[in-house]
């Protein structure tokens, strides 16, 4: 299997003394959609900045499809397409010009650049906006424009840094479809996101980064099996009694709802039986939070506590 990205012992200390990366190691296989999660300030953007040549590493090595960033920076750059977190295109240019210029910087001849721009603007539903001012686009459109721009050099590795932040659900889902489509066509994708549902939907493998280190690097499936308790909310037909709360070891969340932790080893049938025996009907039931979100929170909290203790 080809390795798309290999990061070895990567360290970054900023001039103000902030240590952003502490010897980080990471491998991403070619052809996959890889999730990179971490709380704000964990080092995700620094890592992406180094890979895409926007930040200088203090030490360590980055290889993209076997090419060393240190030895062959321009070759590495030609493999990568970047969708950063913040809008970073010229707001006074037309979307068409933003794309064609970006292709030109990668050495794509203008004629081909115009064809590609048309293709990606149409795929990302921006074609009718091509000749307006980019600053007039909505937030979601601006994000899609950055995705189209990142595709102009037809990269082997596409890095999406929170691509769906602030985007409504409908557009988010259409962007997911686009990402899945380009992954099917062979592009390796690294995705950072705060929407953990997004990672769960799109990615097979995941790395969690915190305090400049990878604290977990595994498959999402494997990661979820480590979660032994899930929190459920049951909506009942009437106000729960103290007796019911005591029996289920539950908490009341509002007039007709209770919340309780259920161990994976425990069957939900038992919970239903106890509720039924007390004369209540369950009108609906749901997870309190996204499972991955809960796990992510626990892992980063645990890591922070360890750090504080040290």
């Amino acid at each position, binding site marked *: 299997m080809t390795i798309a990205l290999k990061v070895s012992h990567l360290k970054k200390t*900023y*001039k103000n003394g902030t240590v952003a990366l502490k010897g980080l190691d990471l491998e991403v296989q070619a052809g996959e959609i890889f999730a990179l999660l971490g709380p704000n300030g964990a080092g995700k953007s620094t890592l992406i*900045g180094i890979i*895409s*040549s*926007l*930040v*200088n590493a203090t030490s360590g090595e980055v290889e993209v499809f076997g090419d060393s960033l240190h030895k062959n*920076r*321009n*070759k590495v*750059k*030609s493999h*990568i397409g*970047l969708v*950063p977190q*913040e*809008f*970073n*295109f*010229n*707001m006074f240019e037309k979307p068409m*010009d933003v794309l*064609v*210029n*970006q*292709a*030109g*910087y*990668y*050495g*794509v*001849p*203008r004629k081909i650049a115009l064809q590609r721009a048309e293709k990606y603007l149409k795929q990302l539903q921006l074609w009718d906006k091509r000749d307006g001012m980019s600053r007039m686009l909505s937030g979601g459109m601006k994000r899609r424009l950055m995705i189209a*721009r990142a595709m102009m*050099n037809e990269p082997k590795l596409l890095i999406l840094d929170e691509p769906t932040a602030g985007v409504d659900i409908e557009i988010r889902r259409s962007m997911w479809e686009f990402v899945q489509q380009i992954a099917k066509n062979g592009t390796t994708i690294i995705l950072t996101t705060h929407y953990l549902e997004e990672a769960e939907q799109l990615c097979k493998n995941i790395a969690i980064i915190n305090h400049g280190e990878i604290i977990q690097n595994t498959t999402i499936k494997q990661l979820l099996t480590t979660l032994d308790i899930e929190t459920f909310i049951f909506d009942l037909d009437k106000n729960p009694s103290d007796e019911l709360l005591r029996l289920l070891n539950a908490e009341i969340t509002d007039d007709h709802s209770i919340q309780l932790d259920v161990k994976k080893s425990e069957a939900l049938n038992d919970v239903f039986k106890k509720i039924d025996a007390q004369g209540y009907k369950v009108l609906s039931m749901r997870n309190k939070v996204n499972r991955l979100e809960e796990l992510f929170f626990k892992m980063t909290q645990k890591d922070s506590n360890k750090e504080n203790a040290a």
Partner: protein
Amino acid sequence: MSNTTLTALYTLGRKEIVRILRIWSQTILPPAITMTLYFVIFGNLIGKRIGQMGGFDYMSFIVPGLVMMSVITNSYGNIVSSFFGAKFSKHIEEMLVSPMPNWVILFGHVLGALARGLMVGSIVTVIALFFTEIHVYNIWIVISTVVLTSIVFALGGFINACYATKFDDIAIIPAFILTPLTYLGGVFYSISLLPPFWQSVSKFNPVLYMVNAFRYGFLGVSDVNIYTAYAVILSFVILLTIICLYMLKKGIGLRS
């Protein structure tokens, strides 16, 4: 040079020139109006009372200086506003993530600055024709000095833009360094009018060599030796190019 590099250079140069033309009311028109006022006030109204300078009437004497002054300020201003603007709004990252070589990033922006410098210089020259006859002693000296001087100030502007972190930083150098050097660089007078001490001090001002070499191309007179002037201008081109490329390589002011 590979085709991809040429494409990148063409793209950047084209983008810069399109920008200048798109905002012509900010880039082309103001210097044309300012220089017209200089011609009317200094050349026509005051100049008539001054009489001759360097063997020519005062209007003819200041035309090369004023053309050069507009080239200097516009070349510098173009690259500073374009490059710092790209830094400020972060679309500089479009170039930094691309495999475009550093010299292309530099040369593409210098091309834009040169284009604006020459556009404005040409317009100011045409305006000058309404006020006086223009002599041309040696067209090659005129062209080479204006191009090289434009490049010098484009490179200087690039360094300023790299270091700048806020808009104040790109206003300070033109206000406190560029304008005094230009005004004291023999645009409006021959340094032969100055006492010997100030003549010597003036010779540390690089703009003096640029203005005088350019004036020599028009009028055949100069306060400095023309070869010395070329040596000074070329030295600045080489020195500033090396500094710019070093800054780009290290990412000074561009990468954290």
